[in-house]
């Protein structure tokens, strides 16, 4: 049962433009959402998180939006840089934090 879905396996964006990565979930009990960036042969690196009491969280070039009614979140990267090229995973947990469910990832390529 795929509780967290990233329907776009890949995305290409020109340097300086906005990258929008999307994530959908099915479990209404999820309260906490995270985005990770992953380079090959490395562990996921935390980027930004959002809890269900918010609909937006911003950290520098990264903004996460949460639409609870649609069970959808998105990560915006503005402006995109070539160093942002990586696989991005969204993950979700309920309030206990006992288990995190990961999406399948979106491979972002930022073209110089």
């Amino acid at each position: 049962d795929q509780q967290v879905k990233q329907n776009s396996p890949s995305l290409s964006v020109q340097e300086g433009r906005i990258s929008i990565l999307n994530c959908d979930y099915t479990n209404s009990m999820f309260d906490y959402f995270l985005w990770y960036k992953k380079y090959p042969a490395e562990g996921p690196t935390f980027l930004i998180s959002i809890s269900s009491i918010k609909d937006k969280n911003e950290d520098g070039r990264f903004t996460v939006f949460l639409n609870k009614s649609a069970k959808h979140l998105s990560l915006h990267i503005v402006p995109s840089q070539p160093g942002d090229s990586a696989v991005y995973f969204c993950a979700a947990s309920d309030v206990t934090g006992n288990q995190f469910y990961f999406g399948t990832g979106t491979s972002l390529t930022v073209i110089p």
Partner: protein
Amino acid sequence: EPEVTQTPSHQVTQMGQEVILRCVPISNHLYFYWYRQILGQKVEFLVSFYNNEISEKSEIFDDQFSVERPDGSNFTLKIRSTKLEDSAMYFCASYNFRVLQGTDTQYFGPGTRLTVL
């Protein structure tokens, strides 16, 4: 910057052998996790550990898997009798979860690549 460390970085073993993967979580974190990623697939949750016991485990985490926090700093994953399909990257993560504050992060280690021959 705090970090989670894992050893070894690469482990090669014969099918049927036991392996122990080691992790040193961030010292003041309370929650610990193991994940794995089979090549080309998504990151899969294996088990979470809190207060010296398993909080939750996935269906992947069957009787051949076990976890321990033997000395208050290390967090180990043992696979008793490895199978070919256990070949994957295994990631440890630690977390200092504060409910709904949204200020905490789950830190991952660099991973151990397990190859079962």
